[in-house]
């Protein structure tokens, strides 16, 4: 067999759980020389998996170390197995059958499995094709991914005609592996004493297709006695629907029911139960025009051209027309011929030989191909500066470093808006030397242009769902030289054209807690998250917001450790000035009113001794601003002589000046209500300065990750805030001693955390 070309015994991953199909196909695989078959040990708990089950019976024959087998068994093979699982899969298996149920498996199997990949196709109902299913499930890149597999991808059709209506690229890759029955011999225990039509129609209440089928059946045959079989996830109210039956009852039904009626006229799909009926010896009356015609049913007496024809035959059968009954029973066995294992085997053998031959050639050819280094684009979509830009630079460094740690060195390009007023070349002078920088403008494409761009780039059949799309235009190649696009934040005014896998680095959903935006204004941002392949978050708090507020699935969100600028105090230890540093800006969530109220209490009632130095962007106009949430601050300060005296506004300081001011402070005060956490407390800890912080989840997460022993206060209570300020005044020098050392911080360096970032990005490549 062609598996000799692969120089090892042939193992197959059969990533399905359909009970009946498994019985036949595993037996067939072994008969053509497959030595071991892996089957999934869990599957989606959905009504559409009503015919599924799990078996461990094949595990021993796999001859794989138990530890590795356990890894395989723990995976969701309909979604996103881990990198480790794929490594094991590639080690032992050359062929994988899969079905398309979620977009994850299409991307995952294409990105990770190195053998032949077979989409097991049993046909679709309602005139849909498998190409339609792929577009619906994975609209942005499903076709692109599977087509890109080239000779390794196969459309493994169970029926010979399935490829006829599929897109050309899929039809070219068709491989006929007929579906049969594990046991196709006619048992013929049929008696037929119960004069009823046996009609199989599962999930009447939960599946619109079957609901329609049932309604149609009822309409056509309601005056005739019938029983409806098939699993019902939700019980039907109809008395004729049997619902869950035991195996014994099912056998009894197959024995006793007078006749089975099969409704389907689909050319590309046939159910299992007509064949079960034939096996049991039950007469089958079926509608013409469906797949049974092509399986040998055109001349059978049970075939009906019209509903009236069907009614006539059913009535005759129910009224003891044994001549008709016997003629149907005597001839319908021909439909089982194509289902017999011995008739299916030649096609399986031929198909596998062809597939394995091409796989061997493909593997040899792959060794000759030039190796391409991956390139990742990090896009800053708006004019971020300050902390956000610092975070972006750290991310760039993390991807660079992380890719090297994984043994997959990649190039990283950072893109900023082409705006000289916001970005000068000096802005990036502290960037890692191997990270390239480019400027870009947002280019807007209408629907037609978007469609053309996607089709030109190989996303065959892609259709726009938005009126316009944006693309970053660097004036060179519009980032088509990059293999993935990582966007900092979700601030996209229109959907980003998915020419490449898109990841979003989302820091917070502040607008959920603070009315920063008008109603509906954040819908484009939410949609950006929903369209991205992956969302990276740095706190559990934001991760939950992504699930709850943005409404993305769990598998789409990955939590990565926070990257903070870690620097060490090279300045000489200074004597603290009698003051603490309040870092803030003019944003709504910075809790200015409560902070000033707290300060007033601290100075007037608690005899606070330390000055309060205020610094941050635009803080020079803190008391003069006309913003609604800042009105009244000036009068609040003026109303207290002590507060007025002790409050010193420093405004926005340069980095050097800020560091000096911070290192001289008794402690740092973070009084904001809610955000994704501030790194100012980390910077303070690096300088040996403790911090008093509002108590909210992201700050707790920072405290846990960086172990900086924050002191907490209730940001909604000025009195508590004041009390804690007094506490810090008295205890700051003691707390200082509990701050982490240099070696503690080194565990939080970019190089230590980088591999986690690359581990997420590489899944999308």
């Amino acid at each position: 067999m062609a598996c000799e070309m692969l120089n090892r015994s042939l193992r197959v991953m059969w990533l399905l759980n359909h009970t009946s199909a498994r019985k036949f196909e595993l037996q067939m695989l072994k008969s053509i020389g497959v030595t071991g078959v892996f089957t999934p040990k869990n599957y989606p708990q959905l009504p559409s998996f009503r015919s599924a089950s799990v078996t461990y019976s094949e595990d021993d024959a796999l001859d794989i170390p138990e530890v590795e087998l356990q890894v395989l068994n723990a995976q969701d093979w309909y979604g996103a197995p881990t990198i480790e699982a794929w490594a094991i899969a590639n080690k032992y298996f050359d062929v994988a059958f899969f079905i398309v149920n979620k977009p994850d498996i299409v991307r995952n199997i294409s990105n990770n499995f190195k053998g032949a990949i077979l989409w097991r196709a049993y046909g679709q109902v309602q005139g849909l094709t498998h190409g339609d299913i792929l577009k619906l499930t994975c609209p942005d890149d499903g076709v692109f991914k599977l087509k890109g597999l080239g000779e390794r991808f196969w459309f493994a059709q169970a029926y010979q005609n399935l490829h006829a209506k599929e897109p050309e690229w899929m039809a070219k890759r068709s491989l006929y592996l007929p579906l049969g029955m594990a046991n196709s011999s006619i048992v013929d225990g049929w008696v037929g004493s119960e004069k009823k039509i046996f009609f199989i129609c599962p999930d009447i209440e939960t599946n619109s297709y079957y609901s329609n089928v049932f309604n149609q059946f009822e309409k056509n045959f309601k005056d005739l006695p019938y029983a409806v079989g098939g699993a019902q996830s939700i019980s039907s109210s109809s008395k004729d629907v049997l619902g869950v039956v035991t195996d014994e009852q099912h056998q009894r039904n197959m024995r006793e029911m007078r006749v089975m009626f099969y409704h389907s006229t689909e050319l590309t799909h046939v159910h299992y139960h007509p064949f079960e009926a034939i096996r049991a010896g039950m007469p089958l009356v079926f509608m013409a025009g469906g797949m049974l015609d092509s399986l040998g049913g055109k001349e059978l007496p049970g075939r009906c051209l019209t509903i009236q024809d069907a009614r006539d035959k059913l009535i005759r059968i129910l009224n003891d027309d044994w001549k008709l009954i016997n003629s149907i029973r005597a001839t319908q066995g021909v439909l089982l011929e194509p289902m017999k294992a011995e008739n299916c085997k030649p096609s399986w053998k031929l198909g596998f030989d062809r597939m394995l031959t091409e796989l061997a050639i493909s593997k040899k050819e792959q060794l000759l191909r030039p190796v391409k280094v991956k390139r990742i684009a990090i896009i800053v979509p708006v004019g971020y500066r300050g902390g956000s830009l610092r975070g972006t630079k750290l991310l760039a460094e993390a991807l660079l470093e992380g890719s090297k740690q994984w043994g997959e060195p990649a190039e990283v390009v950072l893109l900023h808006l082409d705006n000289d007023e916001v970005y000068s070349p000096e802005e990036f002078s502290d960037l890692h030397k191997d990270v390239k920088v480019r400027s870009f403008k947002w280019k807007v494409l209408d629907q037609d242009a978007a469609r053309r761009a996607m089709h030109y780039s190989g996303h065959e059949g892609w259709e726009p769902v938005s009126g316009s799309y944006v693309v970053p235009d660097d004036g060179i190649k519009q980032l088509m030289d990059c293999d993935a696009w990582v966007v900092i934040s979700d601030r996209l005014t229109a959907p980003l054209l998915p020419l490449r896998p898109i990841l979003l680095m989302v820091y917070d959903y502040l607008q959920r807690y603070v009315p920063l935006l008008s109603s509906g204004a954040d819908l484009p941002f939410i949609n950006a998250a929903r369209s991205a392949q992956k969302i990276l978050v740095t706190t559990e708090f934001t991760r939950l917001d992504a699930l709850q507020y943005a409404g993305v699935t769990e598998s789409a969100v990955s939590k990565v450790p926070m990257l903070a600028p870690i620097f060490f105090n090279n300045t000489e230890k200074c004597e603290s000035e009698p003051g603490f540093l309040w870092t803030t800006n003019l944003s709504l969530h910075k809790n200015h009113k409560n902070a000033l109220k707290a300060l007033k209490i601290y100075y007037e009632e608690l005899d606070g001794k330390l000055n309060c130095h205020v610094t941050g962007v635009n803080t020079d106009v803190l008391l003069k601003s006309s913003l609604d949430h800042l009105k009244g601050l000036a009068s609040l300060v003026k109303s207290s002589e002590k507060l007025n005296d002790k409050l010193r506004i420093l405004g926005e300081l340069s980095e050097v000046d800020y560091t000096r001011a911070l290192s001289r402070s008794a402690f740092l005060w973070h009084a904001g209500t809610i955000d994704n956490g501030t790194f100012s407390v980390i910077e303070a800890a690096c300088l040996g300065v403790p911090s008093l912080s509002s108590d909210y989840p992201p700050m707790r997460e920072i405290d846990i990750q960086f172990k900086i022993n924050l002191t907490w206060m209730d940001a909604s209570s000025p009195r508590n805030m004041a009390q804690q300020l007094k506490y810090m005044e008295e205890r700051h020098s003691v707390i200082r001693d509990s701050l982490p050392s240099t070696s503690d911080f080194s565990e939080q360096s970019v190089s230590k955390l980088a591999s986690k970032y690359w581990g997420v990005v590489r899944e999308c490549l």
Partner: protein
Amino acid sequence: MPVKYFGIYLAYAPGVDLRHEGLGRYLAAFLKGASEREDVRFVLVCPSWSREGLADLFESEGVDSASFDVVAPDKEPMLLRLYQAYKARKERKAEIGVMRRISLFGISVKNKLLGRVVRRLVEATSYIDVLFVFIEGLLLSILLVLISPLLIVGLVFYLCFLIKSKFQRFLKPVKRKVARFRRLLKSPKDDALVLRLYNGIARVEAERMLKLVNGLSHVKAWYSPTAFWPAFNKIKAPRVMCVPDVVLSDFPVAFSNIGGNRFAQVYYDVKSAIETGSHYITYSEAIKWTTLVDQFGVRASNVSVIHHAPNDLKPWVAVSGYPDNEVTSINYCESLFRSALKRSSNPDYTYGFENVKVSFIFYASQFRPNKNVISLLRAYESLLRKRLIKQKLILTGRPETSPEVKLFVKKHQLENDVLFLHGLSIQQLAACYKLADLVVNPSLSEGGCPFTFTEALSVSTPVVMARIPVSEEILTDPDLQKVTFFDPYSWEDIADKVEWALDHRQDVLSIQSVAYQSLARRTWTNVVDEHIDVLLEISDKDKFEEDA
């Protein structure tokens, strides 16, 4: 010696001038190489409308037309002939309107008469002479009276002509239709109806060509030099298709706004041609793997890579028989350069530009999204204004075809230093290469190693180029790469490399010349031989499969 016949399938659209297309020059080079084989002869099958264009191409490129056969359907489609006749008529000088002509004629006659009367009176020396003038005037008056009805009719027409504007309102719908018809004739490609008609014509022509092909049973295998024509795959004989590149796939965003859905149809045709093809030739491993295998799912073993041969421009500018051939050659090039300047897009500036010894950097290419011209312009602007180099930048593309390029040059006021010389003859092109201080090629995507390298080195001009896989595949020596390549994604790197190369011109030239000598050993005959090897292989394979 028995001669094997192979076919070349061409199906360019009407109006395509292959002299200005890279593929046209490639075809010419290919046939020149083929003419040296005595055991092989090529048959070109082309549409009826391409015969003349091919003849022009081969003449301009010096290809011996006796070395191959051309087969085409007899007559051009009627619609096309009518359109071409209309175009030819339009290209003649625009005629003056009827009324205007009559008016001018009348004025001319009046002036002549007046002149004659004045002359006669002035020359008159006796009463008899004066009398004769009056008799002439009387006779003329009688004549006028006799033809007065015609004059009256003519006057009426003239009055109608003057008050025509009153009737404009009623003529608007008619005028709209006429305007659309005029637009259609001026730019037929942009009209949906014309597109449908053209597609129909192309389909019929393809069928006529297929009939001819099927009748050429002595042709063993067929070759298509591009992937534009899915009809090629209907030929029932061994066939191989050349896929130089699918640049729309590499630059989907940039091309999405060029040509609209008409252009998209070209892409779909290319896609269909590749997907229904069986054997392929590309110019580089890079295109084989990234385009054919990865994007179109073609089996790698069905793709043969045949690298280009160098393009030698020396024969166009090398003179002989002079005391100093090199000096004479340069002088000759300068005279060609002077004529090339006349093709500038900024004639106001270049008209009086006398210094043919001007220093310049040269890039010969059309302006397409993959050519990365903006990065080059950014680099040049920085070199000129910040690093204060003196060289001009000469490009051969038409700025009208690239609004971004035009805007950049205007915005940065580079009109007098960035010169666009387009539509150059091969001789003028060679002269520019020879006279340049440095040749540069920033292109991000090509089917094979750009011809720029060999074109420049063939006339002893150094070159710097983008580091792209197709170039790295051919120029492999690390020292060579170091002096030649820049990062095309970084205009700063382009500027650095250009500046360095200008300062180390001789060093660069020395290293590159060695590489060029090695590359120059490959000729177009080698290229043709390798094509023939592929054609033979596929024809034998098909025969084997048939026999089996």
